[in-house]
């Protein structure tokens, strides 16, 4: 077990170095930079911009900057935001809860709905429901998330006025109900794609299981249909889904980014976009690294969970 984790961590280190290098090089070699936002300030000149860049350490050789940044990662110093000077980790930590709330709610919803749709589609293969679910999932995967969000805002906020067009809560309210009404649209939009993905995979995982001998055994035992479905079919069909869930993290994270931008959700996606706009390199790098770590941890967790959920798998 520890050997396995060490291996995974070793792989992850490679991934992290690669991601950070790519990000760092792209950011620093591209024209423009964090100074340009001040260019139109009154009395600004190139000399002043150069002085500030110098003070921020941006004039040193790129490799020096990279190595300093990278080695400091390990002592928990991810640098300071160019914008508000706060440590990058606490900037990210400040935006993380909103993203987790959105992602978590959407993921739970997608897993529940997706599992249901997928299992039902597999059980009633080729039925009207199955056909509709299959076609529906394909269309859902094809709808641009951000556009779907726009249409939802137009319909439910601007036109009907039922739901807020953005934000996470109303200032001064912040009750549970208030959070809930703000969550509905972004969660629905984010969940749409995830339900589609999850139900498609769940359907094929269920089809793989449903014709297996042990399901027949369970039926031969005279178990109620529901019990056969839950304890034998779904329980086993979910096993490959754990790994899949791990692999889906980048997609969900990417989806959250898109959703946050449309619904002005104050999470990591929003932070990322703002940081791009202001060339806040430390925060951009921080988010890149953080997402990579999140994905890697998610995969690791998924592997460990499979080990727990599937007695045949012993990680070694």
């Amino acid at each position, binding site marked *: 077990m520890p050997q396995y984790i060490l291996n995974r961590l070793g792989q992850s280190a490679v991934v992290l170095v690669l991601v950070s290098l790519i990000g760092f090089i792209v950011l620093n070699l591209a024209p423009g930079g964090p100074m340009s936002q001040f260019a139109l300030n009154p009395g600004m000149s190139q000399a002043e911009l150069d002085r500030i860049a110098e003070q921020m350490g941006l004039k040193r050789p790129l490799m020096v900057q990279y190595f300093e940044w990278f080695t400091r990662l390990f002592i928990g110093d991810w640098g300071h935001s160019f914008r508000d000077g706060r440590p990058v980790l606490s900037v990210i930590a400040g935006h993380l809860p909103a993203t987790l709330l959105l992602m978590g709610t959407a993921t739970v919803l997608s897993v529940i709905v997706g599992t249901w749709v997928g299992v039902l589609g597999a*059980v009633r*293969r*080729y039925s009207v429901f199955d056909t509709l679910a299959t076609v529906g999932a394909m269309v859902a995967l094809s709808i641009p998330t951000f556009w779907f969000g726009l249409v939802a805002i137009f319909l439910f906020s601007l036109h009907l006025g039922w739901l807020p067009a953005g934000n996470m809560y109303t200032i001064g309210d912040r009750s549970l109900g208030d959070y809930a009404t703000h969550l509905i649209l972004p969660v629905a939009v984010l969940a749409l794609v995830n339900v589609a993905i999850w139900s498609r995979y769940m359907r094929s995982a269920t089809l793989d299981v449903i*014709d*297996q*001998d*042990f399901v*027949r*055994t*369970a*039926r*031969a*035992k*005279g*178990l*109620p*249909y529901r*019990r056969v479905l839950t*304890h*034998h079919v779904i*329980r*086993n069909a979910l*096993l490959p889904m754990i790994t899949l869930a791990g692999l889906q993290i980048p997609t969900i994270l990417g989806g959250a980014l898109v959703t946050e931008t449309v619904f002005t959700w104050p999470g990591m996606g929003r932070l990322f976009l703002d940081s791009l706009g202001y060339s806040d390199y430390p925060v951009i790098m921080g988010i890149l690294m953080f997402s990579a770590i999140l994905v890697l941890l998610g995969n690791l967790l998924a592997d460990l969970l499979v080990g727990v*959920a*599937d*007695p*045949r798998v012993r990680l070694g």
Partner: protein
Amino acid sequence: MNADEKISVAHLSVAFRRGAGYVPVVQGINFNIRAGETLALVGESGSGKSVTSLAVMKLLAQAPKTRIEGSAVVADSSGRAIDLVAMSEQQMRHVRGNRVAMIFQEPLTSLNPVHRVGDQIAEAIRFHDHLSKAQARARALALLEQVGIPEPAQRMQSFPHELSGGMRQRVMIAIALAMEPDVLIADEPTTALDVTVQAQILDLLRNLQKKNGMAILFITHNFGVVAEIADRVMVMYAGRIVEQGSVAQVLSAPRMPYTQGLLAAVPRFEHAGLGQGDLGTIPGFVPDPAAPPAGCAFHPRCAFSIAGRCDSQAPALEEVEHGHQLRCLRWQELTASVECAQGGA
């Protein structure tokens, strides 16, 4: 239904939906099994023997659609005769695992890999007897002991993959016997096992049958096993019974060329447990049920088929002696030659 007949199957036919129509895969099967009796059902893969057993249990896969006709009568817990074919899925639940139980060929894949074997046994009990979890587990433990599993308390906690093949099949038997069923359908229960283990499982089944007097429908393609365990034999080909009779009648004096072919494929040394390849000595393949040959279904592969007769006229099941029936147009002509051959040996 006779009082000591535990199951009585009549005119059982099964058809699968293909395209617009239905393709018959099992046609007009009749049999009954008395208490304590074992009926072996023999045939090549694709002959319809597994479909027959699954049709009785109504466990055929949902896709493609199937149509089952005829009747399969067993007694319910209060002794009333019930026809399984006519029963709803809801009603079948109370029959399966309770009045009629089944064990399968592959004990590894037939057990749920993610549940402990103790739970898998107890599960069956809980849902029929509405016992508490603890009570059901106590019964499961007793059952494991009964099927001869050493250290049953520990094995209760094992997962299927942690057990040997023989142990797994014992667990399957324990699950099947949990509710002391009237009828046990064993679908090639020993095929996947080592020869020595095979013998142990057959012993176990025989002993258990002696104890509780259940009727066993034993499906196999292995005549060695048939000789070991069965009282009577039924040979199936292309969805129909082609020969049936007592073990002595069929095994020592097969009349139908197909049965003869099957038997000829078994080496003289009673090497039980050889695979299906042995049956390959009959040339050709089982016909596609969607496009059955005209006349006798076996005629394309039959060494004795006569053009203009076997390929045009369908044989009926005829009684050749008491309890021994077969389906062949030429059985009378052939009997002589077989007797000559046997006499000469």
